């Protein structure tokens, strides 16, 4: 038995080590030494991120159960950086009196969902994939309900777990039918036999909606705003960036690797969903007053844009997708970071609370503005590049009308992003949010995000590096 081949799974192992050591530390540390928990965790995680950022050659473990390609390193690194930023932003929150005790759990749960995503990404088999998916969502629900004394958090947790379970049931049912029609659960084998008979199509649809749920595409998105609103802001950002980022990558990989023979069919599905997601989410976002809810809809529409990269099914699309996720991560996390700082101190999340923020908190406002512009796809911020590449990838495959619809929607999305900017910079407020001082880790996170937004677009090597390892049909 070649257990040693397991050691090839560097990322997973090092993450597991981080998790276990933190768990052990949490269990055995004294009250006093718990002070060092977060710095230790951050250092360990940074270390983990750094040592795993170099892509290696492709390999398989456990007979194809685990299938590594170099691109995954980039995706995982992006997820790592995102998680790191979130952990930095959560530092403050976890130091609060009420939450101090749950520090260890927070880290453990977060990292275990991350591990789940790792496996989901690298899975070469539906079983691995399914376990990964569940690992990424079941502990997540406890994270959503992390503020357990908060009604909203509790409600969000319940909604999340119920929706997730429902989705995974349907997805599981779909998988069973896929198994029933192909006789195998290994991706590479399915690809050859999955030709798109009626039953296979039905199985495919049942299966894939589980992923749509994770990505929260319309009409599988309805849980998103409620859960985003209810959960603690850092968790929300984790949900909207990391969880979604992993899911879109997996969706692309699956569609391209496992279902290449029904490309026209899934392109049709994605076409419809992209239009629906972008449009409906934008329409719903317009009226939101709660910023977290607002960002939920914004992220749904962003997911719709991501579909444009997936729909192309090309290497270009793949690279654009990963790049988009990278940029989206920086931008969205910057916004959520600002939100979390403010919500942490003042419990204010309404857009009207942000009126006149610039007068009192110029730096936060600028970070927020840059991030929102990036989300809206305004140059010179990275969001512009990522959107352009995605549209480019779709147009290359001839999806002119789809791109046009998406572009029209960028106008609506710009509208609501500008609403926030308007609130911060233009609207006057007699009692604006008082001057806030964010703690050091949060500051670092803002610096990382801002730098990311500024340079990832202008310096092409990020994209070019990603493009080296991208693959398509």
């Amino acid at each position, binding site marked *: 038995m070649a257990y040693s081949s397991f050691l090839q799974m560097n990322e997973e192992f090092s993450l597991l080590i981080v998790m276990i050591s933190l768990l052990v530390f949490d269990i055995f540390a004294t009250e006093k030494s718990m002070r060092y928990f977060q710095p230790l965790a951050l250092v360990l995680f940074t270390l983990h991120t750094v040592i795993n950022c170099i892509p290696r050659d492709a390999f398989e473990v456990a007979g194809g159960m685990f299938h590594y390609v170099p691109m995954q390193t980039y995706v995982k690194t992006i997820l790592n950086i995102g998680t790191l930023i979130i952990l930095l932003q959560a530092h403050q929150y976890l130091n609060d009196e009420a939450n101090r005790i749950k520090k260890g759990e927070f880290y453990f749960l977060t990292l275990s969902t991350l591990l789940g995503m790792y496996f989901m990404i690298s899975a070469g088999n539906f079983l691995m994939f399914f376990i990964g998916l569940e690992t990424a969502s079941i502990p997540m629900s406890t994270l959503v309900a992390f503020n357990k004394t908060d009604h909203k958090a509790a409600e969000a947790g*319940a*909604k999340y777990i*119920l*929706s997730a379970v*429902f*989705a995974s049931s*349907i997805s599981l049912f779909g998988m069973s039918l896929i198994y029933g029609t192909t006789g195998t659960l290994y991706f590479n084998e399915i690809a050859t036999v999955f030709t798109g008979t*009626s039953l296979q*199509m*039905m199985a*495919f*649809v*049942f299966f894939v*909606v589980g992923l749509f*749920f994770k990505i929260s595409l319309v*009409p*599988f998105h*309805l*849980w998103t*705003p*409620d859960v985003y609103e209810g959960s603690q802001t850092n968790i929300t950002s984790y949900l909207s960036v990391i969880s979604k980022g992993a899911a879109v990558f997996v969706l692309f990989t699956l569609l391209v690797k496992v279902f290449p023979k029904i490309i026209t*069919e899934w392109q*049709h*599905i994605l076409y*419809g969903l992209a239009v629906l997601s972008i449009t*409906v989410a934008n*329409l*719903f976002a*317009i*009226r939101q007053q709660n910023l977290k809810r607002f960002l939920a809809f914004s992220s749904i529409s962003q997911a719709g844009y991501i579909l444009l990269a997936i729909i192309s099914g090309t290497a270009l699309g793949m690279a654009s997708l990963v790049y988009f996720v990278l940029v989206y991560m920086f931008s969205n996390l910057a916004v959520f970071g600002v939100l979390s700082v403010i919500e942490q101190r003042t419990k204010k999340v309404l857009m009207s609370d942000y009126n006149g923020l610039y007068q009192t908190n110029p730096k936060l406002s600028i970070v927020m503005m840059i991030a929102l512009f990036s989300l809206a796809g305004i140059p010179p911020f990275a969001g512009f590049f990522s959107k352009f590449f995605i549209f480019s990838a779709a147009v290359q495959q001839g999806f002119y009308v789809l791109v046009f619809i998406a572009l029209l929607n960028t106008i*609506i999305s710009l*509208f609501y992003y500008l609403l926030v900017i308007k609130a911060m910079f233009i609207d006057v407020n007699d009692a604006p949010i008082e001057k806030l001082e964010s703690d050091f880790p949060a500051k670092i996170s803002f610096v990382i995000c801002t730098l990311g937004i500024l340079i990832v677009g202008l310096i092409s090597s990020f994209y070019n590096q990603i493009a080296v390892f991208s693959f398509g049909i």
Partner: protein
Amino acid sequence: MQYTLLIILLPLLSFIVLGLMDSKLKPKVAGAIGVSVLGIITLLSYISAFEYFYLHKIEGVYEKLVPLHIEWIRFNEFLHIDLGILLDPISIMMLVVITTVSLMVNIYSLEYMKGEKGFQRYYAFLSLFTFSMLGLVVATNIFQMYIFWELVGVSSYLLIGFYYTKPSAVAASKKAFIVTRFADLGFLIGILFLSFYTKTFDFNILNSGDASIFASTAGVSFMGISVMSWTMGLIFIGGAGKSAMFPLHIWLPDAMEGPTPVSALIHAATMVVAGVFLVARLFPVYHTYAPDVLHVIAYIGAFTSLFAAVIACVQTDIKRVLAFSTISQIGFMMVGLGVSGIGGHEGHEGLGYMASMFHLFTHAMFKALLFLGAGSVIHAVHSNEMNHMGGLRKYMPITNITFLIACLAIAGIFPFSGFFSKDEILAATFQFSPYLGATMSFIAGLTAFYMFRLYFNIFWGKEHKHEHTPHESPFTMAFPLVFLAAVTVVAGFLPFGKLVTADRSEYIIHLDPIVATVSIIIAVLSITLAALMYMKEKETPKQLATTFSGIFKMASNRFYIDEVYIFITKKIIFNLVSTPIAWFDRNVIDATINNIGVVTQWTSHKTKRFQSGQVQQYAYVFLVGTLIIAAIMLFV
């Protein structure tokens, strides 16, 4: 003759200096600059006139000199606007006229405008006008002419609106500009047509008589009228606008809101004859390619002349009387051109042209004199209204005499200059058509009548009570009067036929004794009539006014042309076009865009309930979504 460039440039320089320095200069200095520059260029233009008329005659034909010619902007391989100086008899004549009158007006204004706020500005504008007008007359090509044409229009606008705090002056300046601008549109389109077919702007080429230039116009017509007629007609519209031909004359009477010396310079002597000059400049083209337009010009000129003369008979504002008289006299010039032919060694084909130019020259002198005289009167009594005057001959002898001379000249009494020029026009007209000739003679009679009505009303008649006794103008104002009067007296004896003719070769003037006698008789009769009616305070005018109340009222109201103008601008352009368009823009186009936003937001709010907060509804949508996708994939 390179120095002619100085004639053009010095006023520009003076404008720039005065304009930039403005109130930093003392008024006296500004006046001195203006006058001295004008003095220099007047001298220069006299010199150039002498030099030209004595030295540049080759085989009996005056040369066309182009001492300066630069390309200013190039449109394509054929078309380019050049700036240059074209010297030929008419431009030389115009140089002389313009510089002379301008100099007089400049001197006159030293006193007349003394103490006015913006004295420096006034001189700057005068310089600008002089520059533009000179540039216009020496233009080598039609586009250069258009450029200066516009500049002249603007100077006129600025000068009419000199008293900018006075609403009527502002309105008048605006009206003058817009009406002439409207005419310029015709001019511009005419130029565009002309240049399109002939591939040139250059006068020398256009007038060269080379038929190949116009080859491409052959057979092209629109609505049964040949394209050249359209073109030249459109160009004439431009001239008609500047020269206040009916129905574009409405701006000129209002333009009297400007300072009186300005009226003398611009609205009597120089700018208003630009239209005549334009036709004269393109005369060969008109004559060869659009003779029908030339005839139309004659009839329009005649009608305008008559129309204006009738109105002049009943106006009470002395400057307006003079304005209408100007319109009428320009009508004469137009008639002269309209009935003219080219050449004239034998027969009289070129008579009209020559006469017209001659009349232009003499008219400039005596009309400037009249205006300056009127200015002198106004200066004395501080009013424009005839009723406020009367019996001024005792107080203002010089003005009286010079004014009388001018009146005699315009009435066509021998030996004053007007007699010669007008008489030749009449002679030419009779040659063309006896009916037209008769009409013109009648108008000449009317002219004599209203001029003397004016004269008697001002200097004779019952004395009006004045707040302070009117006094004669000082020397700076009197000198120009005297000078111009002198010119008026002698100008008739200038050998004009030798100098300025349609084909630039000598034309021997034969005074037609019958026409001359008849016209003098008519003039004398008219003067007598006027003397009877107005020399003493009498009831006759009033009786006449009541007897012919209909026509009298119409004439006093200038035949309601101004009302039509107001109707068109206010009611039609503003209320029926602009306001609806503005409304449409705000309430249809803009509202459409706004409503897109409103509808989007409305939809957003209406779909609130879709997100009900119920997790089971979420699952329901999820399930239905899945089933629908599956169904579509399988069954569609």
